[in-house]
């Protein structure tokens, strides 16, 4: 009896202690690892693909070596990254492929996130076959002929249909609807992660096997496994409005940066720098390739790029 009473008192008093000292807005809490050892810290979110890593690596390098910040990186997928950005758990998101719903909510309504300008890279999603296959069967690059070749793409996983490989669940994809609406004899197989997808593509390429995959540019893998896009029915504004009825290609998206509003206002040099950060598809690919293919650490790759592109990044600091 006594024990229960003690426990009750303890629970109540700790609750009182917690609630007694007023409100606590958890959306305004920084990461516990930020600003350690007196350094100013910027927390950047990294997405799971290498292009995003390249952005962050270069930004991190310049923030640390030119501006004297300490940089923490957190790997979060895009949509959760918006949420984290809004809460200030991360300060910046450097590569966003277009999330109108989130933009509406956080940038326009709640104003917790600020538009950070364009990254300078244009992204595009599509279906790709390896170039060696396209050379063998030139007409395979038109979606209308895909059914003719579906037997080439059979795997144990897709059974008696052709396999269309999709990647990470964090990517924007209409492929299931496309296959259905274009009446293709294909089965969408989700690799589940970009790492798995890339590994599988390289294994196929090593043996010159045919494969059809969801892929995107800019992407460093094109340098290792040359691929040709399969033409889908052309993209028109609004043709992908209803996710169930999509029957057209993916758009070309200018990639954008977003900053936490508080950081954008009070982030000083770091925020100013990140707003100005803008480079080209070639630049990004160069760094990506060093990271992903040459297996350099992101830091070394960024250093190498920065050493040879001084003029590019000097502009970001002015």
């Amino acid at each position, binding site marked *: 009896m006594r024990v229960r009473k003690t426990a009750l008192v303890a629970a109540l008093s700790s609750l009182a202690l917690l609630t007694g000292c007023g409100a606590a807005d*958890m959306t305004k809490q920084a990461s516990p690892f930020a600003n350690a050892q007196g350094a100013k810290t910027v927390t950047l979110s990294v997405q799971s693909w290498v292009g995003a890593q390249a952005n962050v690596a270069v930004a991190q390098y310049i923030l640390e070596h030119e501006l004297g910040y300490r940089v923490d990186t957190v790997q979060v997928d895009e949509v959760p990254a918006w949420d984290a950005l809004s809460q200030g758990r991360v300060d910046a998101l450097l590569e966003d492929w277009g999330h109108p719903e989130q933009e509406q909510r956080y940038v326009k309504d709640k104003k917790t996130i600020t538009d950070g300008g364009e990254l300078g890279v244009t992204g595009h999603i599509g279906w790709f076959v390896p170039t060696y296959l396209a050379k063998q069967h030139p007409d395979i690059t038109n979606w209308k002929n895909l059914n003719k070749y579906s037997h080439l793409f059979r795997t144990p996983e897709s059974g008696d249909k052709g396999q269309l490989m999709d990647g990470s669940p964090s990517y924007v994809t209409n492929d299931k609807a496309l296959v259905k609406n274009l009446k293709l004899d294909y089965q969408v197989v989700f690799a*589940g992660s970009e790492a798995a997808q890339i*590994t599988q593509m390289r294994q196929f390429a090593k043996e010159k096997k045919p494969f059809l995959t969801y892929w995107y540019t800019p992407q460093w893998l094109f340098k290792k496994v040359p691929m040709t896009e399969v033409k889908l029915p052309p993209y028109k504004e609004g043709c992908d409005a209803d996710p169930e009825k999509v029957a057209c290609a993916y758009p070309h998206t200018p990639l954008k940066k977003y900053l936490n509003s508080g950081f954008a206002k009070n982030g000083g040099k770091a925020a100013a720098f990140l707003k100005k950060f803008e480079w080209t598809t070639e630049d990004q690919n160069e760094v990506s390739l060093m990271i992903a293919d040459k297996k350099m650490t992101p830091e070394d790759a960024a250093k190498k790029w920065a050493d040879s592109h001084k003029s590019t990044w000097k502009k970001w600091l002015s």
Partner: protein
Amino acid sequence: MATITASPPRIGLPGLLKSRAFQKLLLLAVAAAILVPLANARWASGTWPSALTVDFSEPLAKASDWIIDNRDSHPLFLYFFGHVSNVVVIAVRAVYLTLLAIGWAGVTALGALVAWRVAGVRLALGTAVAFLACGLLGMWVPTMQTLALMVVAVVASVVVGMLLGLAAGLSDRMDRVLRPVLDTMQVLPAFAYLLPVVLVFGIGVPAAVLATVIYAAPPMARLTSLGLRGADKEVLEAVASLGSTARQRLLTARLPLARKELLLGVNQTIMMALSMAVIAAVIGAGGLGDRVYQALASVDVGAALAAGIPIVLLAVVLDRVTGAAGEKLGAEPEPRSGVRWLVALIGVVAVAVAGRLAGRLDWPEAWIVGIAEPVNRAVDWMTAHLYSGVPVIGGTADWAGHFTTWVLDPMRDSLQALPWWGVLLIVAALAWVIGTWRTALTAVLAMAAIGVLGVWKPSLDTLSQVLAAVAVTLVVGFAVGIAAARSDRLERALRPVLDVFQTMPQFVYLIPVVALFGVGRAPAVAAAIVYALPAVVRITTQGLRQVDPAALEASGSLGATSWQQLKQVQLPLARPALLLAVNQGLVLVLAVVVIGGLVGGGALGYDVVFGLAQGDLATGLVAGGAIVCLGLMLDRVTQPTERRAKKGA
């Protein structure tokens, strides 16, 4: 249905009629004969009837929107969750800054000296080596981040677990309420806890810590309650007979008597917290798990391994040190133990101050050894030579293909072809034969819940993968376990291997698995086998070794060959352990279904990953719920009696 109503001939089988299993089946068959035609007439369909599903996506999406919109304004968040989150952030930060302030030399010294005091010189050396290895691999800061998170999560788990355990241990009513909850939480995969906490706290450290606490507190609670209840009744009576108050009884007798269990609880909590701290990288925990996860994105096995090794080292060291502390209990206390603690403390302070004065708090860059490249080369070589075209036996890709076509496909198709009530009946029959009507009811309800959630088909797909993986795991696990039980040398050699596989973050072996088996369900099954195998091997070996030596001696004296001994004495006597191995195999395989989703396993695992990645809580939570139900069902179907043993090996 036919499988169940096919009653054996009645004449000449009185024994069978009397057997309880048969009686249960007969009763079930009668119930089925009445209910099935009714159900079938009403909802005639092979798969789960859509009339019986409830669509949760709308309300869940609404709830998630509401939370996001109100997180910075609603009192519930401002006055409760906000503070919880705040406390977590402040605590983690305090520990993290302390660790950084002590510096790498100080932390290493602290670890080594604590290990020396509680576990002896050898483990102290091991601890020091482990910490230095973390630095050498260039992982000092992430290691400290993970450690800071772990310290806070473990302390919170131990406190929460002990409070719950005290409640369950001292009050029968609380025990009745808590026991089934804790038992159930024990079988749930770690991923299942991520989505709900993310929903409330958003991505970040607070969510990671809370998910870890939810995951790691139950073993502490169970073991605390077990320890309190398992105390020698006569000692407690003696203490009462001396006129003690309830408080005195608790503090001077019940808790000290339960200290073995308490320490085991701490040990288990640490191990579970560590594994969760890695998985929680998906929701922004940072630290080592995040490094592994980032390396995965650039398909860099070497980098992933560099971050994975510190995790393994931490796990092994923490396990051994807490284990050794447990074994030391009850031994005669060392003389002048206080003085030695003081010496240890002074040593730590001296090293830390020296490190500070030398300006060497951060691990020196020059001392970092890159292991990524050689590892990657080794992995490349292995995958290049094993993937396909190996003469005679074929490559791993061919095996994966055959396994998919000849095992996974037929299993999935036949499961999905079964009428829904047929699946429920099979579940009921299995659970009832093995347990009581209560277990059968729980199992059937869990299975039905999957149907109601509207994910019947993908769940059966996942189930087929789980069953295939468990079958392979058990065959291999029993074989290796039996071999290890018969040879001390093999067991010793296996121990570090099992340790590594049990503690290595699963993200690390994801890429090699895909490189060997391609994308699809086969690599998902392979990843599950790698994860579940160590526990099955351990339990099998332990079970066989614990067989009463007198029984072995007796059979040996009758001239039994060693094969006969194994078959007729050891295996039958180790039956409970083997059943536990089956149960644990299932639970563990299910726990990595989500990992399977990352390599093309599809089905529920993919849905959970999708939910996390897209912030689509409806999809994620429903799939997570279905995994939970599958886990419950499989656990009940393989749980012979009220099992109160601790989880896993």
